[in-house]
C-alpha cells in the first residue's frame, strides 16, 4: 500500500510531544497540506458533554486571543431543515482572495501551500477580511492578552506568538506542528478522529488513527469544498454527514457548548496544554 509508507511517521509523531527523528529526516520533501473533515464523525462534541475539542485545542495551542475562534464549529442547516456541524478552519485557498488583495504581502502562501500572515508586516487595513469569502479571518481590535513570557517568544509566521494589536489573525494549519511531523492541534484533539491531515504530493491522509488514500477517500465519500463556485480552490475538504458514525440523530437539536479560552483552560508557554490534559 502506497500510503502506508509515509503514514506511520505522521501517526507516530502525532502522538509524541517531540518530533521524531524519522519525520525530521523526511522534512526536505515539500508537502502540500490539505485537511479533510469527515462530517459523519463530527457531532459538535455534544455527546461528549464537552465544548468542541478542536476549538479548545486550537485556543491553547496558539493562545488564541479571547473572543476569536480560528477554527469554528458552525451549526449548519441541511436542505431538509435539520442540522449538522461543520468545523471551519482557514480554507488555505490555492487561489486565495486574501493573499491577492493584501497591499503589503503580509498574507502569503508558504511552500507547502499554507496561507500565513506575517504580523510584523501587517498594516491592519483589513482588506483581506473583506475579501475572505469564508469569514476565516479575525482581528486584534485591542491589545490581545499574551501568556507570560510571550513577548520574548521567538515570533515567526508559522507560530504567531505573541499576538500583536492591530493585526489580522487566522488559522495557519499549525504550520509549526506539521513541519515537525505532527498533526494540527485540532486534528490531534478531535475525540472522534473526524479531522484528517492530508498531503497532495503523496496522496495520503491520516486522522492519527487510520491512514487513507486521499484521492480515493475524497472520491468515494462525495467530498465537497465550501463555496466551490467562487473558484478559490480551498485546501479543506468536507465529507458530508451529520455525526451519524457516533450515533448522532439528524433531528438532535443540542448545540455545542461554548469553547473555553486558553486562559480558562490554564495554558502557559511552559505547559501549553494547561491542566486540561
Amino acid at each position, binding site marked *: 500500500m502506497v500510503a502506508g509508507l509515509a503514514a506511520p511517521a505522521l501517526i507516530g509523531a502525532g502522538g509524541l510531544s517531540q518530533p521524531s527523528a524519522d519525520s525530521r529526516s523526511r522534512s526536505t520533501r515539500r508537502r502540500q497540506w490539505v485537511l479533510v473533515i469527515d462530517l459523519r464523525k463530527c457531532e459538535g462534541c455534544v455527546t461528549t458533554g464537552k465544548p468542541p475539542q478542536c476549538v479548545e485545542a486550537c485556543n491553547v495551542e496558539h493562545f488564541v486571543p479571547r473572543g476569536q475562534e480560528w477554527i469554528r464549529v458552525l451549526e449548519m442547516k441541511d436542505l431538509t431543515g435539520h442540522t449538522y456541524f461543520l468545523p471551519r478552519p482557514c480554507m488555505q485557498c490555492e487561489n486565495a482572495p486574501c493573499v491577492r*488583495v493584501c497591499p503589503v504581502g503580509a498574507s502569503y502562501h508558504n511552500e507547502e501551500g499554507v496561507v500565513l500572515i506575517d504580523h510584523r508586516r501587517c498594516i491592519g487595513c483589513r482588506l483581506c477580511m473583506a475579501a475572505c469569502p469564508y469569514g476565516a479571518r479575525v482581528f486584534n481590535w485591542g491589545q490581545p492578552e499574551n501568556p507570560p513570557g510571550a513577548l520574548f517568544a521567538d515570533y515567526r509566521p508559522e507560530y504567531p506568538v505573541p499576538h500583536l494589536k492591530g493585526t489580522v489573525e487566522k488559522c495557519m494549519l499549525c504550520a509549526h506542528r506539521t513541519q515537525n511531523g505532527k498533526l494540527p492541534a485540532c486534528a490531534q484533539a478531535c475525540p472522534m478522529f473526524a479531522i484528517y491531515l492530508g498531503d497532495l504530493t503523496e496522496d495520503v491522509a491520516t486522522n492519527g488513527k487510520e491512514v487513507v488514500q486521499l484521492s480515493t477517500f475524497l472520491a468515494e465519500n462525495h467530498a465537497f469544498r465550501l463555496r466551490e463556485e467562487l473558484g478559490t480552490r480551498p485546501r479543506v475538504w468536507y465529507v458530508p454527514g451529520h455525526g451519524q458514525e457516533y450515533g448522532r440523530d439528524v433531528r438532535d437539536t443540542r448545540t455545542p457548548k461554548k469553547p473555553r479560552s486558553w486562559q480558562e483552560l490554564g495554558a502557559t508557554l511552559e505547559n501549553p496544554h494547561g491542566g486540561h490534559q
Partner: protein
Amino acid sequence: MSPTEHERLKALVFQPVIRSTPVYYLWLAFLLVVFGAGVLAYLNQLNRGLVVTGMRDAVVWGLYISNFVFFSGLSMAGTFISAILRITGAGWRRPLTRLAELSTVAALLMTALMPVVDMGRPDRILNLVRFGRLESPLLWDLMVIPTYLVASALYLYLFLIPDVAVLRDELKGRVSGLRRRLYSLLALGWRGLSEQRQSLEWAGTVMMLVVIPIGVATHSVVSWIFGMTFRVGWNSTIFAPYFVVGALYSGTALLITLMFIIRRLYHLEDYLTEQHFRYLGYLMAAFGMVYFYFTFAEYLTTGYKLGGEEKDLLEEVFFGRYSRLVWPGFLAGQVLPVLLAVHPRTRTIPVLFGASLLVNVGMWLKRFIIVVPSLAAPLLPAYGWGIYIPTLTEVAVTVGSFAGFALVITIFAKLFPIVSLWETEPERELMVETGGPSLMGGQDD
C-alpha cells in the same frame, strides 16, 4: 465691465483677505475645537486600538471607510467639474472655479486621511511603500489619490497666480512681511505679460486634460476596493462608473452649497446670480438622474431573480435593519433634490441650497449603505447578520474630519481670494473660452 466696477469687484474679493471680522475668528475657533476633538478621539483610538470603535470581525469597516468614499466623492466637485466647464467654455462658471478647485483639495486631504485613521497599524504606513504590491486594490488608491491631490493642488495654484500677483502688488504694508514674501514667492514673478499669459494658458489646458482622467480613475479605484471582493452587493461590474457618477452628483451639490455660502459672506449677489445656481442645479439634476438610473439598474438585475444571498441583502437593506436609512436617503437624497432643481417654481437660490444639502446627506447615507450591509451580510448561513453601531470615537473623528474639510477652506479664504478676480472680469480674461463652444452659459459674459 467699467473701471469702477472692477474696483468694486476687487474690493469685494480681496476684502476678506485684508481684514477679518470677529465672526471669522469665531468660526475658525469653532472649527479648531471640533477638529481638535476629533484629533483627541483619534489619539485615544491610537492608544487603545480599534477596539474603541464599533467595528468587529463581522463588520470590519464602518464610518471611516464610508467617510473615505464620501470625501472622495466630494472631491469631484471641483477639479473635474471646473475642468469640464472650462473645457466646454461655460462662461458662467468663472466665479466658481476657484471654490470648486479648493474644495477638491480640501476633500482629497480628508479622503487621504480616512484610510489612515482606519488602519490597525498606522505606525507601519511606510510598509505600503516598502512592500507595496501592485496586485492589491489598495495600492491603486495609494497611487491615484495622491496623484489627484497633487494635480488638483497644481491646478488650483496655476489659476491663482495672477490673483496672487495682485495681492503682492497691492497689499504692500497692509499685511505682515511674512505674508508679503509668501505672495511674492507664489506669484512667480507674474507681471501679466503676454508670454506669461500664454504659458499659463498652455499649462492650464494641459492640467485640465490631465485632471479629468485622474478624477475618473480616483473614483474607479475607490470603488474597486469593494468591487474586487466576493462580497454580496460589492461583487458588481457597475461599481466603477456608479461611483464616478455618484461623485459627480455629490460634487455638484457641494458646489451649490459652497456657492450659496460664499455669495452671502462676500456679498457677491451681482456675480453669483440665480442663473449660476440654476445651471448648476440642472447639472446636479442630470447627474442625479444618471445616478438614479444606475441604482435602479443595479438593484433590478440583482433583485429580479430574488435568489440566494442577494435576496437576503436586498431584504435587509430595503425592508430590514437598514430601511430606516435607505428610504429617507433615497427619497430625500436622490428623488426630491432632482425634482426641486428642475421645477420652475422651486429652482430658486434658497431652495437649491437646501436641495444641495439634501443630496450630500443622502449621498453620505448611500456610502454607509454601500459599505456596511455588505459586510454585515453572513458569508455562510451559520454566521447570522453582523451588527455595527458606531461609537462616540468614530462619530467624533467623523465630525472632526468635516471640520477639517471646512478648516482648509476657511484658512485658504483668509490667505487668498476665494473668487478668481482675473477670471471673473471678462475684459482681462484671456484664454480658453475665446474659441471654445459654450456649454449652456455664455450669455452672461
